[in-house]
């Protein structure tokens, strides 16, 4: 096994996998180093919701660009990836939230994203298991869902066809200065090292502005037809939560198996692994407020995971002070959605290609310059 590569990707989650494939397509000899299994971190823990998010122009640009990339890939994705364009319905509980629905509609319409306002009856028809009455909602048909670990697996499989090398069960001790030191003693060399280790990124780069944001999900047994779209509440508008407090939001997803994923929760400073029953309880309470029948479904498993959160809710895609070290992390709850665009933008920077969207807003250097602005706290609690 060679120890020299054109690029080494640290982490075989969905972001790392996407980067590996994009660089392999660019003709680079790529190695991917992963300490556990493919997609075993946040990729396994989160909801695979592919969503165009409107909380800031930069967020929208990245998510919608990536969403179109997924749509273009859809036909090739194997059945195990469970990609389905089921759409999202943003659920409005009252008139204030219906006003937000109108605002979103205009925002999306101006940018070519197809969306449709649903009144109370249309919402009930679209999702009979929602409680009544609710005010209505916004249906975004381009949104999709998939099963992230197999999506990461597919991307890596394609990368391997282009001679990328996958090293599983290897922990990285140190990375930088063109060297990646592994736990069993060997050192890999590359002029391009990409830290795609998600919430663990600061372990290799102390001081990196990425914090763990804990989330929980519940998966139920199979109830085919119970839920048809990804449902997300707009209720955060009423919430008094600051963007850094513990919060829960109604967010449920239908899987192709007929199982339901029930979320979502967000916590900072909750770094222990393991299920936090108090916040799961709040999460269920919130979910049952919108969909009372969830209470009597059979739950097979509850689990937690860590999103990689940055101060301004945008990911870190690009170079660091070390000319050999690059970042592709900090995706918070949008890693699945933006993995493909992240890979494109990073590869564009590395290979000097013209990017489809400006990559300035995602450059790691923006945080050092003090130019960070807070995104709307509104979207914070929403997406899983």
């Amino acid at each position, binding site marked *: 096994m060679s120890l020299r590569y054109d690029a080494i990707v640290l982490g075989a989650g969905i972001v790392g996998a996407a980067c590996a494939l994009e660089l392999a397509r660019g003709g680079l000899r790529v190695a991917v180093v992963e300490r556990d299994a493919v997609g075993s971190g946040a990729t396994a823990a989160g909801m695979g919701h592919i969503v165009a998010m409107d909380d800031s122009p930069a967020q929208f640009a990245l998510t919608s660009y990536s969403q179109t990339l997924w749509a273009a890939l859809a036909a090739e994705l194997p059945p195990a990836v469970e990609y389905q364009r089921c759409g999202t319905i943003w659920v409005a509980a009252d008139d204030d939230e219906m006003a937000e629905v109108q605002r979103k509609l205009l925002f999306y319409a101006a940018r070519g994203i197809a969306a449709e306002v649903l009144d109370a009856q249309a919402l009930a028809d679209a999702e009979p298991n929602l409680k009544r009455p609710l005010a209505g909602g916004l249906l975004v048909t381009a949104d999709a869902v998939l099963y992230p670990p197999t999506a990461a697996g597919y991307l890596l499989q394609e990368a391997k066809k282009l001679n990328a090398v996958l090293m599983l069960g290897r922990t990285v001790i140190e990375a930088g200065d063109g060297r990646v030191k592994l736990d069993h003693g060997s050192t890999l060399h590359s002029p391009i090292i990409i830290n795609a280790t998600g919430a663990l990124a600061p372990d290799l780069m102390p001081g990196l502005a990425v914090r763990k944001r804990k989330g929980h999900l519940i998966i139920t*047994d*199979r*109830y085919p037809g119970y839920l048809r779209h990804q449902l997300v509440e707009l209720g955060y508008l009423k919430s008094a939560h600051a963007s850094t407090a513990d919060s829960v939001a109604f967010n449920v997803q239908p899987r192709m*198996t007929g199982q339901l994923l029930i979320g979502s929760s967000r916590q900072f400073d909750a770094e222990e692994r393991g299920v936090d029953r108090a916040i799961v309880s709040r999460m269920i309470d919130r979910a049952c407020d919108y969909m009372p029948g969830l209470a009597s479904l*059979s739950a097979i498993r509850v689990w937690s995971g860590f999103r990689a959160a940055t101060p301004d809710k945008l990911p870190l895609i690009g170079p660091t002070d070390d000319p050999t070290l690059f970042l592709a992390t900090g995706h918070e709850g949008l890693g699945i959605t933006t993995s493909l665009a992240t890979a494109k933008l990073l590869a564009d920077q590395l290979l000097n290609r013209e990017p489809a969207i400006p990559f300035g807003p995602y450059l790691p250097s923006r945080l050092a310059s003090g130019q960070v602005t807070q995104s709307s706290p509104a979207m914070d609690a929403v997406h899983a």
Partner: protein
Amino acid sequence: MPDSIQMFVDGAPITVSSACTVASAIAIAGRNCRTSVSGEPRGPLCGMGICFECRAMVNGKQHTRTCLILCEPAMEVVTT
């Protein structure tokens, strides 16, 4: 002599003893408990509530482990 109970499996009435589990009642009725995700017929495997192969709908409740439930009068069992 154990009491006998009348109940329904997939709409058909059967009579079993009160000490009978629903899983056994399903077998007595000549049915299989469930169909697997790829379409195979399935029946109880472990007999003790661990394998979930004996699942059926009992009185409207889906995914019930029938080997753990004793039959009751007028119980409605629906296999999949």
